[in-house]
């Protein structure tokens, strides 16, 4: 981590960048926040990069692109897909970014640690990039607990897209291979359910939704200046939290709008205060796109036409859905 700070200071000092977009230490040791640093002092005192720095900083680059001067941004391998996609959509300015691709050993989900019954967490040791990242020692008000690093990882890290950065000016720190699950396994499990089971499953999950919009606002693909659900364009800005329909509409359309653009960065599921596995919507579209139109990974590059802005003459007919079922 010190290497990151030193390199950032260098780039600030030599004028390559005028600010640094990274993570700032939280007050509890496991709640860092995305932050801008403009001085060496600030970097020294507040910068952090460890297992809890899950936040994908690429979306912040939309605002940073409007500012004068270059911004140094730290992007994990999975974040770089989002950044590429944002370049493709003209939402960020490549010229305004100095990208340090930063290694990743899998990011942690404090909610998962809590779900293991660990209460009153004061600090977590073993999450720094310097450590082995195999076991975490959790100090709590009610004694110390040992937790497996792997088991505390975010869902997305178990289906990691790989250690490669898709775009970067330089790469620092080693990454670790964390993939130990099939990306579409969960989707397939649902696909195998009966219609009623599927419906009950999603109904239950979506009944938790509080329409806080965290999933949308954190999503690098949901970069609309004004979401259709906030504008009058579709007369659909209703805000009501009614189980019967609103959430379904919101989540289906949100997933549809990011279909072919979603890089599967997993931020939506990470931030959902109710722990709704929102990636299951996006990943379903990804799976369908792969099946129907050939494999496609959004954010692999900045040029390719997305699957929904493309077609072939012999695409499958919509009736495939009925025939398949």
């Amino acid at each position: 981590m010190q290497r990151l700070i030193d390199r950032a200071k260098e780039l600030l000092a030599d004028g390559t960048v005028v600010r640094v977009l990274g993570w700032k230490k939280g007050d509890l040791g496991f709640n860092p926040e995305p932050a801008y640093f403009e001085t060496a002092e600030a970097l020294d005192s507040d910068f952090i990069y460890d297992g809890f720095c899950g936040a994908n900083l690429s979306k912040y680059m939309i605002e940073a692109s409007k500012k004068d001067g270059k911004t140094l941004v730290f992007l994990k391998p999975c974040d770089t897909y989002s950044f590429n996609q944002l370049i493709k959509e003209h939402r960020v300015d490549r010229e305004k970014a100095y990208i340090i691709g930063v290694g990743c050993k899998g990011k942690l989900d404090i909610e998962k640690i809590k779900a293991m019954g660990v209460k009153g967490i004061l600090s977590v040791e073993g999450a720094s990039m310097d450590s082995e990242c195999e076991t975490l020692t959790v100090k709590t008000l009610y004694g110390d607990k040992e937790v497996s690093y792997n088991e505390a990882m975010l869902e997305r890290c178990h289906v990691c897209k790989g250690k490669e950065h898709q775009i970067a000016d330089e790469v620092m720190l080693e990454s670790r291979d964390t993939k130990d699950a099939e990306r579409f396994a969960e989707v397939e499990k649902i696909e195998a359910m009966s219609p009623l089971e599927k419906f009950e499953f999603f109904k239950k999950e979506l009944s938790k939704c509080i329409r806080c919009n965290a999933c949308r606002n954190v999503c690098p693909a949901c970069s609309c200046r004004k979401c259709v659900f906030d504008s009058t364009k579709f007369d659909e800005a209703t805000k009501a939290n009614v189980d019967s329909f609103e959430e379904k509409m919101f989540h289906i359309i949100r997933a549809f709008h990011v279909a072919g653009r979603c890089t599967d960065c997993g931020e939506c599921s990470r931030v959902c205060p109710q722990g709704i596995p929102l990636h299951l919507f996006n990943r379903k579209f990804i799976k369908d796109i792969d099946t129907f139109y050939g494999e496609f990974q959004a954010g692999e590059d900045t040029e390719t036409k997305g699957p929904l802005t493309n077609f072939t003459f012999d695409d499958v007919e919509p009736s495939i859905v009925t025939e398949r079922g």
Partner: protein
Amino acid sequence: MQRIGVFVCHCGSNIAATVDVKKVVEIISQEPGVAHCEDYQYMCSEAGQAKILEAVKEKNLSGIVVCSCSPRMHEGTFRKAAERAGLNPYMVEIANIREHCSWIHKDMEEATEKAVILARAAIAKVNLNAPLYPGESRVTKRALVIGGGIAGIQTALDIADAGYEVDIVEKTPSIGGRMSQLDKTFPTLDCSACILTPKMVEAAAHEKITIYTYSEVDKVTGFVGDFTVDIRKKARSIDMDKCTGCGVCQEKCPSKKTPSEFNRGLNTRSAIYTPFAQAIPNVPVIDREACIKFKTGKCGLCEKVCQAGAINYEQTDEIVTEKYGAIVVATGFDTIKLDNYDEYAYNQSPDVITSLELERVMNAAGPTKGHLERLSDGKHPEHIVFVQCVGSRCNDNRGKSYCSKICCMYTAKHAMLIRDKYPDVKVTVFYIDVRTPGKNFDEFYRRAVEEYGVNYIKGQVGKVAPQSDGSLLVQASDLLDNKQIKLKADMVVLATAIEPDPSVRRIATMLTASIDTNNFLTESHAKLRPVESPTAGIFLSGVCQGPKDIPETVAQAGAAAVKAIGLLAKDKLLTNPCTAKSDELLCNGCSVCANVCPYGAISYEVVQVNDHGIREDRRVARVNNALCQGCGACTVACPSGAMDLQGFSNRQIIAEVDAICR
């Protein structure tokens, strides 16, 4: 919020018989925003339109809903009426309560309820309508005629005479079409070739007309006034400029076994051939399927004998791309296949022929040099039986439901000609009805019966059975005497139904012109716009629109020409104002809309915006209204809803959905 006037049309009894129009008015009057509601017999009539004008003036209306026939029928009429009333023409919406309601439902209560809902949807939409203003587009002063039969030739001549360039595309090696296959024409008995050939020559010689024979339309893009068409000139294997039309190649060609298309397969032709002697252009083509050179690589005789050196085996298809302001479809017809009519033994006996084949038999240039003879053995026939309505007016799905219109007359013609030339031949005609509506038609038919002693029997032929002695046994019912009869005949001539040329489907698709279930091209209005397709800039000439005889075809060809001339005479056309429009405050500049636009109508620019106090430079989409055709692909691709389609906006469609589902 509009002040809306709703007008419910009875359409005589077309609507009013199934929809309780008064009740619709009663219910709709109570809808919010409806300031006026009335019904009328015929809204499209002058008096009906006057009602709109009056109500707009009196009630200060700002939006109009007409509950009537399909908007494809009268949307334009009512838009014009609104314009005369001082409203923007796009403040009109049509609720289609005829084609989509009264005509397909029987239960009055149900149909009325549906009519109310359709009206509500239109009201909901018009509430969100905004005035739209058309832009302008230029007109290419050149017309394309697809099909080089009498219809196409006549249309081309008329357009060319008015001073505009015309191209004819004909798929066979020569222009002339079906008419060139006919022997004589009713009711005057002129020689068909004698009246057609001069027209063919005139067309070929006309400086404004370019003829592409052995060619097909490959691709059509663009829109009224500005079509771009790719014409595929199929490889003729002959250099047209060099060929002198001497005909030696055809004589020498060793491959002579191909059934002649022109003679309806009654005899054969060579692999290198002109379809008939008077063909225009008088340049042969090589049928590569039949040509020995193409099949085996050996031969090349024609090349050797051609003194002009016109044979070119290397020739390939050539694509000519040309721009047109108007397109006339004149693709004509063919007779239906008789595979479903085993009872007539058409496939079993060569002596059962179609009327069109009889034309060739009777023709001096035909397979029998004009001698009437049995094709099986060349024997002079003693008795010929004509069977009417073969595949026409059919109520099962073996044939066509419509009347082919020309059969009664040409059968009378055939019978008369045979009796005139061969008084010894007995002629019997089995008919269901004899239809002779036309100038001098009935007189003509009566002459056949009265002067020439043709035996007309009202009845249906049940079976034609070839006999071992080479004759045919015709079993029929005599409907007037109500008895079964059996006749011995030497030849049976089937008045086979006609159907649009099969190529028309592909052409209609390219032109986005509508066709009906029988593959006839649909006219824009059955009565009032019979020669125009609903697709702007596409006109209909001849049998492609419906069965007709020659004078009717020529009349329609002229009418189509006049419509095309009317279009070409304009310097500019008003463009459809229902184009996409981007709200720059919502636009993300993500380019997704441009990615799906088929017209390249969307570009991006950086503009300074004031978004509720936030001033910044943004990359935003701009729509070129001259290029945008209003498909709406961009509006769905746009995630933020910044891109919307004027006239079919998101909120308008949602308002319709809501109104329907409420």
